[in-house]
């Protein structure tokens, strides 16, 4: 039986992928299979609906290395009879996707935000032009490699285990890349991309000193301060790691509060996926108000301290 093969180096992402794979596989009659290189993961995938988990505990696959994993997954895909391979679109997932797709002579889409079945075709949506647009695409080759972004689908809950673990011996060429060490990212660095709440500030901020009030508001909201590009690259008031948008990070926060930002597409792509968007701006015609749930026409310098006080209660 032909199958869908699911893999990510992060088990939590496999849980998300399994749910989607089950939905797709059910409709097009594909068996649901997964690959795992750790016994705990293999068991967990069985409990979440995989009917077969292809497993190897060879030394070569203990640690992730793209060219090794591409060899491994190509062999597993063949064993599984997989025509559709779903990966997690992390950095590792993406470097694997391209290499694996080349090995399988497959078409490939990465950073896929949503996936659905239409007339028997797997239709994917992903950002294009730096996020200014969303491209709806389908892979035309018989083998398909699709990398889905984290949080693109709901994780499958744990249930009763039905399938089996198939232990494989893989033929792998040795790795030519040696990991010397792993280390923490700059501890001062903040993760704008993963933030639940973003307080974004733009050129409407008149003085660097006023960043303090923005910080205080972010703190009161339990969020992080981010900015539009000019504030970091032209004015250098904030580090470039705080830029949201085309030249910076694209997040999916629960709330994005935009202060003194006009809202051009180059910025707004970074927060477009937010559940709720709010904005404060003096200009009633600012583009930002076209993409907000709640807007307030006011001077942010006056509004922000009051807002902070109100939230602190």
């Amino acid at each position, binding site marked *: 039986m032909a199958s869908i093969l699911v893999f990510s180096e992060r088990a939590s992402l496999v849980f998300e992928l399994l749910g989607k794979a089950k939905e797709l596989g059910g409709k097009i009659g594909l068996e649901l299979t997964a690959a795992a290189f750790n016994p705990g993961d293999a068991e967990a995938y069985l409990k979440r609906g995989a009917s077969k988990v292809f497993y190897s505990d060879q030394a070569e696959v203990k640690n992730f290395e793209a060219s090794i994993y591409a060899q491994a997954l190509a062999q597993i895909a063949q064993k599984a009879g997989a025509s559709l391979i779903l990966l997690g679109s992390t950095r*590792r997932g993406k470097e694997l996707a*391209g290499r694996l*797709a080349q090995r399988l002579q497959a078409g490939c889409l990465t950073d896929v935000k949503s996936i659905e079945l239409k007339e028997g075709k797997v239709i994917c949506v992903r*950002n294009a032009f730096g996020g200014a647009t969303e491209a709806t695409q389908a892979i035309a080759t018989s083998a398909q490699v699709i990398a889905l972004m984290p949080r693109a689908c709901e994780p499958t809950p744990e249930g009763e285990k039905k399938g089996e673990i198939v232990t494989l011996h893989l033929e792998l060429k040795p790795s*030519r890349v040696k990991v010397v060490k792993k280390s923490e*990212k700059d501890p001062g660095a903040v993760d704008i991309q993963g933030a639940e709440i973003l307080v974004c500030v733009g050129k409407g901020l008149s003085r660097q000193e006023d960043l303090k009030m923005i910080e205080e508001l972010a703190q009161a909201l339990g969020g992080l301060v981010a900015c539009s590009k000019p504030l970091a690259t032209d004015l250098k008031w904030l580090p470039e790691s705080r830029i949201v948008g085309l030249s910076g990070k694209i997040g999916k926060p629960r709330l994005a509060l935009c202060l003194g930002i006009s809202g051009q597409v180059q910025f707004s792509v970074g927060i477009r996926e937010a559940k709720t968007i709010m904005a404060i701006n003096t200009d009633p015609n600012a583009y930002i*108000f076209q993409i907000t749930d709640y807007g307030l026409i006011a001077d942010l310098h006056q509004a922000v301290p009051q807002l902070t006080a*109100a939230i602190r209660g």
Partner: protein
Amino acid sequence: MNIVVCVKQTVDLQQVRIRKETRQPVLENIPLTLGAIDKNALEEAVRLREKTGGKVFLVSVGPENLEETIKEGLAMGADEAILVTSPELDGTESARAALLLAGAIKQMENFDLILLGEGSADNYSGQVGPRLAEILDLPQITYAKSLEVDGRKVRAVRSLEDFLEEVEAELPVLISVVSEINEARIPAVTQILRAGRKPKKILKPADISLKIAEGRSVETLSNLAPVQERKGILFKEGLKELPGLVQALKEEGVGRK
């Protein structure tokens, strides 16, 4: 050391606007440029060459006007360009671009290092690097935020989502870089003038010996700005309506519980 830098010509995304009525991107009359991260890869190559000697080769695939756009890269310090051009290579997909790049690189006498950006400016799928490494059977190091070459050994720090990973490999190797790796130089006028005289080798797809499948591996059904479904509640009366915003924040479960 001979360094290959793969670059892609795209429209300048900072200038793309969306046609409100149709949600289509307006791409006419927008200047063409090389991708921003491509320029970081080139900058890194030029800095390496300044230390180790050798040459920097730009390799790219695109329509004929690529010959003009590539001058920007030559002005930034690349020594030569090898281009595969043809009208049908406008908007080439990753799978085909990787094969054409590989074919062009295979025609070179030798190379030690291939550098490119982690993703193109317009499509950002990050496929070309890993595909190219697979075709050329090279080790790949992606998302490098710093790198150094010592003899035949290259050492790089990779920037992954949650941590950094320091890795080592022997040349030749393919490395993709993240924008944090450096600040790309802006060429001086004299360099731009000189760039036109640097050697350019122009290949046609027929000159590439690798087998390339007919047709596209990915079809695009539509490409439009997304529809925003927002509440669109606007408090127009200034500060006295601040409580409305506070109320909305509380309803979203934000702030003190």
